[in-house]
């Protein structure tokens, strides 16, 4: 009898043992955490939510108290400040850098989605749509990398730490990466299901991005590589993609509405997403998600203002530059009542975009000015920045960080038109019809006389200020681009890079880029001047060297991967 019990107990124990492995593995997976596995990617909502994270990468006016890509990027010839005076992004090789690391993180994110979708059971159309969005985003990551570093390692899938060959691989030639970017964007353009969507990735956005990539690579091939064929090809891609969508984005009537509109109707404007020109935008909402651009660009402690160089770049309303205009071309404002220097007269005769970008008064350390909804403020150059301030905001909203809620355009008609016009002009295919289609609406909106405007007018303008060694036509298109898109999305810096004109940022060769307003008639004296112009250099200089066309590869990456090489000129 004893034995029966004994054997019974043992049998019981033995039976329990048999189930051990299942018992452990059944418990391996958490019940309240989402696991990344094939099932994950079969759920469209998961894919969507993963893709949504991509939007975070578009800074626009900034996030909360952070700075954005509009106004805040001051490494250009348009803006100068005291704190914001910007030397080259890198003057020494950094030990590590987000400029290198961050895009790869974004690329990994895209590659994970792409890899996950590959075996997803989602309907093909839905899958292709998501795939298109992920590839659009991956293209953006690589475009950021190539512009900064030239050749970069090309990673086409989310890597595992064990994949050492890819992890420790060499840099891929930039041309190959650019081709890869173009391929991704073309895929996106033909697979994203939304054609138009102001707030989300759309096929039109993919085309708009092809225009950006096209004019970048077109110019780079032409002015850096002397590769006419490649230049023509990429400018051609820009033209094709741009013309395919341009008709859907007519130029709106009010330049300021692009920058000051809110998410919904109100604040003196209709909602930005209803603006016919908007291809893609970043929305802000009061109390939910806001920015600080209004606060920073109307600050009481010194705004990074417009430079003399930028001010002088605008045409007069007769469609002529200073050299040939018959209008009053003085740049000295007049004393206007108590401690104010008015430039209203100057603005009246210039391209009206200038009047919409700066204030009718000059203000500087020692002579502050109170704007429509601001306290006394001053600009380091004398010219304030009015472009991004919606004056219906309360003073508190206008002067407090993280209280601004006007929306930011990211891709829009003007930007698109200028890309198409430039590509056509560079490829020599710009016609009078094109000028009428892509340039004239911008001039009209800027209040410039367009009665003479045609191809010949532009080609024969021959502004002596043209210091880029390009034809009058190209110069005028570049001028229009600069004035239209001033302080927007860090466009100017990358334009100078692709045009091979980065030496324009050398303050010793181009002193006007650290000068501000003419304050000869100012009621309050200011001793920090060069001649009559406010001096914004504060003794600082920025010297150009060829190496600045590319960022240095961060030291830690070179240490980790001996196949990586440093960019020329950097040590």
């Amino acid at each position: 009898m004893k034995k029966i019990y004994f054997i019974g107990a043992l049998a019981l124990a033995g039976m329990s043992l048999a189930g051990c492995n299942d018992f452990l593995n059944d418990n391996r997976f958490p019940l309240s955490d989402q696991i990344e596995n094939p099932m994950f990617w079969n759920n469209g909502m998961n894919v969507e939510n993963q893709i949504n994270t991509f939007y975070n990468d578009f800074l626009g006016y900034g996030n909360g108290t952070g700075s954005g890509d509009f106004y805040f990027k001051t490494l250009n010839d348009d803006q100068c400040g005291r704190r914001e005076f910007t030397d080259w992004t890198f003057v020494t090789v950094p030990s590590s850098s987000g400029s290198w690391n961050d895009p790869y993180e974004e690329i990994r994110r895209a590659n994970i989605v792409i890899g996950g979708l590959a075996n997803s059971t989602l309907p093909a159309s839905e899958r292709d749509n998501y795939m298109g969005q992920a590839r659009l985003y991956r293209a953006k990551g690589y475009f950021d990398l190539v512009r900064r570093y030239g050749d970069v390692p090309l990673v086409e899938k989310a890597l595992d730490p064990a994949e050492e060959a890819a992890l420790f691989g060499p840099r891929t030639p930039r041309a190959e990466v650019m081709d890869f970017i173009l391929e991704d964007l073309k895929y996106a353009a033909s697979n994203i299901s939304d054609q138009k969507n102001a707030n989300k990735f759309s096929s039109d956005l993919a085309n708009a991005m092809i225009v950006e990539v096209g004019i970048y690579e077109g110019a780079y091939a032409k002015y850096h590589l002397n590769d006419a064929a490649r230049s023509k090809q990429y400018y051609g891609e820009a033209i094709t993609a741009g013309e395919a969508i341009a008709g859907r984005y007519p130029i709106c009537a009010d330049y300021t509405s692009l920058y000051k509109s809110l998410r919904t109707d109100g604040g003196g404007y209709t909602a930005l997403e209803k603006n016919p020109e908007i291809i893609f935008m970043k929305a802000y909402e009061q109390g939910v998600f806001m920015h600080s651009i209004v606060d920073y660009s109307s600050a009481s402690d010194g705004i990074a203002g417009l430079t003399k160089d930028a001010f002088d770049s605008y045409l007069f309303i007769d469609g002529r530059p200073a050299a040939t205009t018959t209008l009053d071309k003085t740049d000295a404002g007049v004393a206007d009542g108590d401690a104010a220097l008015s430039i209203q007269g100057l603005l009246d005769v210039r391209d009206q975009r200038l009047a919409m970008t700066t204030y009718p008064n000059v203000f500087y350390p020692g002579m502050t000015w109170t704007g429509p909804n601001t306290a006394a403020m001053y600009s380091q150059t004398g010219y304030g920045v009015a472009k991004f301030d919606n004056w219906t905001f309360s003073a508190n909203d206008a002067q407090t960080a993280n209280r601004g809620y006007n929306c930011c355009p990211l891709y829009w008609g003007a930007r698109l038109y200028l890309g198409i016009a430039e590509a056509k002009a560079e490829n020599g295919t710009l016609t009078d019809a094109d000028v009428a289609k892509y340039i004239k609406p911008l001039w009209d909106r800027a209040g410039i006389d367009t009665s003479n405007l045609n191809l010949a007018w532009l080609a024969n303008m021959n502004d002596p200020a043209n210091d880029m060694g390009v034809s009058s036509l190209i110069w005028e298109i570049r001028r229009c681009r600069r004035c239209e898109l001033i302080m927007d999305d860090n466009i100017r810096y990358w334009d100078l890079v692709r045009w091979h004109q980065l030496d324009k940022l050398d303050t010793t060769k181009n002193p006007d880029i650290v000068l501000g307003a003419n304050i000869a008639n100012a009621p309050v004296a200011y001793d920090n001047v060069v001649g009559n112009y406010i001096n914004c250099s504060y003794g600082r200089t920025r010297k150009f060297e060829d190496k600045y066309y590319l960022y240095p590869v961060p030291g830690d990456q070179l240490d980790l991967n001996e196949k990586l090489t440093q960019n020329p000129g950097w040590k």
Partner: protein
Amino acid sequence: MLLMAGMPALGTFQAQAAPEPQQQSQTVTTITGTVLDENNEPAIGASVVQKGVARNAVSTDAFGHFTLRVPAGAVLQISYVGYKSMEAVATPDMTVYLQPTTEMLNELVAIGYGSQKRANLTGAVATVDVARTMDSRPATDVAKALQGAVPGLTITSANGSIEGAPTINIRGLGTLSNSHNSAPLIVVDGVPVEDMSFLNPEDIEEISVLKDAASSAIYGSRAAFGVILISTKQAAVQDRVSVSYTNNFAWGRATVLPEFQPLVQNLETALDDTRIGGDKEVFGMYYEDVLPFARAWAQQHGGKQYTDIVELRPFQSWSDVGDYWVFPAGTNRLPAGNSAVDPNYIMQSSRYLSYGDWDISRTLFQAAPSSKHNVSLEGTSGRTNYRLSFGYDAKEGLLKQNPDKLHRYMVNANVNTEIFKWWKAGARLSFSDREYENPNEQRNAYQYMWRWPGFFENYGYVYDENGNPKQFRNTSGIRSNSHMDKTITTMTRMQGYMIFNPFKGFTLQADFTYSLRNQNSDSAAVPYSLYQTWTPGSGTLGNYEPYSQTTSYAAQSNYRDTMWTANVFGTYAHTFADAHNLKVMLGWTAEEEEYRYFYAKRNGLVDYNLPNINLTNGTNYTTSGKHTHRATTGFFGRINYDYKGIYLVELNGRYDGSSRFPAADQWAFFPSGSLGYRFSEESYFAPLKKWWSNGKLRASYGHIGNEAVGDNMFLSTVSAMADSKIYWLNGNQKLVMYNMPTLVSSSLTWERIVTTDVGLDLGFLDNSINVGFDWYQRETKDMLGPGAKLPAVLGASAPYQNAGELRTRGWELSLNWNHSFGDADVYATFNIGDARTKITKWNNGDDQIYSYLPSLGNYTQGQYFGDIWGFETDRYFTMDDFNFVPGADGAAGNYVLKDGIPDQTFLQTDAFRYGPGDIKFKDLNGDGVINDGNPDMIMLNGKYFVPGDAGYEEALKNPNHKGVNTRTLANHGDLKVIGNAMPRFEYSFRLGGAWKGFDLDLFFQGVGKRDMWATGSTIIPMAQSALGTFTNMSSYNHVTYGADGKITDYQISESNTYPRMYSGAGGAGAVGSIGNGRYNFYPQSRYLMNMSYLRLKNITFGYTLPVELTRKALIQKARIYFSADNVCFLHNGAGKYQLDPEMSTASGSSVQGYNDGNGTFGRTIPLQRTFSFGVQVTL
């Protein structure tokens, strides 16, 4: 026969009278007597034998009584297990006091799945003297009572919370993964439990601490960092029902409380910080305005502070300043000459100053009462034994207003029965209910109580327009208005077991345990209003206006944690040829745990008197939940062999599987073994035995796996992105975004803990002196840590891998001595242990250096865990160190360091500049600069160069040179390791004795060495601007500057405790990643806190009523006692820090105070000193 853990030997007594024919030649009388043990408890079942007449013997009964017929003058021999045999001449009504035997070598010690004779132990196993650590003193928390009980066991409490559980470690830190979780496994009656808080100390029979791998390995996957083995009291065969009752009543006060400087000095000290621009103020109360009032107030109150909440009086005149002063409308600064004060202004939506001064400790703190009661019942019915116990205890917190409260109810039942001779079965049931109530203040009382001096938050009241007294916004006012949140935790544990003895030498045991922990928590915020001194922003004066706590919400959370455990194991023991003892054990265990959690919160209470989640209608609500599970299983075996008890061998093996790892890496085998040599049993040793009674050498080595490496470490999970990191809208709401799936290592496996232990046990003078010593090394291999850095093209940081290593080395020594002098027994024990943990492998790029805790998760290979980096303080700068350089054009000049004095410019941040009276650091590397490394250092082929070194220029030209980051092991400038935050040389000693019913026990506990760098406001004056200063901060350097920047007056002395005042020094300076502190308070040797201490942890004095007396009331034993905890301590920092040295956490900070920019270190619940008395009665 092997005795199972938790199955102590049943008494071998039987009351057998031995009627024996007596020799007629002698007068035979019947005598009675009582046998008592050293605690004056009856010795039940002691054997009493007439010397020389073995058959004339009896056993004592449950009262320790015996009756025996013996001839006059006969000598009785009394013996009792665990006690020295003794002889006494038989006399009527005699009382015999037994002395515990010091021969404890035959005592059975609980070990994993069994027990072992102490003499035959080969691993590092320590037993807790339960009688002395718990039974005779009013412990309610088992874990806290274990502090200092055995060497190598570290129990630390972050603060004095009545609710908090202490941290337990055996032999120091075992792993850096999983938030340093290297807690030992706690096994109660053979089955693991998650925490000990549900245990009633009164139910504990025995505690063993298994310290090395060889001892704990048998418990496998969760026992990597040692095991605490607890057996509860069992039912034993009784000849009657025995009932015992104990109680205790205690009052506790804070051991140490900070003490603010009186208000006048507080203001003066703050105003001595003359260098920071702007006026000194708290929310618009300017210190220089407050000062004249404070002086007058102090004078009018004879220098005494208020000690209670009082009615505030307005200013009357300068000879009767009242407690507050109201500004005339439209003004907010004191007019010149303080003259234009109109006593008729009343506090009515006007701005005002307050200047009453309060003694915080008396105003806010109480003597916290606590009590406990316990009843237990034991008996036997047929072949079934039972033991039941019921316990209740209640505790209260230290704050006067709405103190937090803890109630516990505990029930325990043990039943066992013998079904057949060879088949026993039993069950254990325990239930505990723990209810904790705490006001929902929505801010931390201690954080604010020690923030500003008492005047600011005004511990007073005024009458509102309806004539009702209204308090101010302060700890007292808020607590008395807050909702009492309640958390109820219940634990139910049911265990059934069977033991079979099918044939001689073999035992098979099977048990199954199910436990359920359930917690329900209700919290709510109800609106109320108080008057306040706060206004938004600084520079505006306090308004006398209602402070409205307008938030109203109800929240509820619940968790349910269920676990089942099954064990089946068999043991076979046999002795061959009377010399070879062999014991083999084989078994299987499995365990599964499931955890479910739910939380919901919604705002908008419908009825403030019914704060229930169902009675809310707000639109703002939160819900969350969690559901996890895990499982482990393992097979284990052990072989013990000894040859005549001289040569001892033990081998263990365990094959473990855990659900925490990928299927392919789930199983691992962990072997261990130990050897012992009892040289004292060798024949050659016999001559020494007279004085050297025991000697044993032991050595053990073993591997154990650790599976507790954290959740989801090998699973790629996707989580929702935090709302604050979402930068895109979907309509007027934020878009939903997911974080990137985590990158995890595909091959993650067990951490492997390898322990080597060498020990020596010695006994002298019939084992009245025992010495035990252990040396050990514990290596944590394959420790989870960051993988080697990978190129950024990966797009994610390298996942955690089994890539780290840790090594702990230490030693432990214990001594104990017992002796009897006639009726008096005395004893003394001493324990000490030390361990240091070195991080032997950790990927951290270029060996960046980090101090203890600046950010958990960053460590430096080659450093000891807990190392604190900082500067060495040299002295104060004096006038002689500087040259005065006048300013140009009438501007103020400044003081410039003379040549040859090391430059501290690198450390200057913000507007702070080092000048006379400030801290001067030592230039340890002699480069003339005080910094955290040379920014120009380069490396070429493993050699380091700085500018000026021979070969620097050449190395610089070599394209292969590399820059060397500062604050790295290769380049740390003048930083050095100034201390270590881990407790070292932890020791304890116990002195005590008993004499004629009186017993006295003194328990001392201490830490020999421990440092801490903290930026708390009790350590660094004004760590944040406007923080109150404490009485330890009255001595500091004064320097007065004239308008031209020249010093007009100064008093700088090395004997001053502090340098010149400069507020805000608690923040991060130029070496922030090393630890907070800046200006004069960079982490440095001078203000490093010395946390070593020696404390009289407990003193207990008891008296047991003579049995002769109590017997008449049918009482077996009655004892009354007085006990005091944390009576006093010696502390190097006493007076200097105003903190209890055992305190380790700051309130209001998630990190342990170390890197705490808000100066909150020490602003937490103080530890208690308690005085208590109680009775223990056994019927």
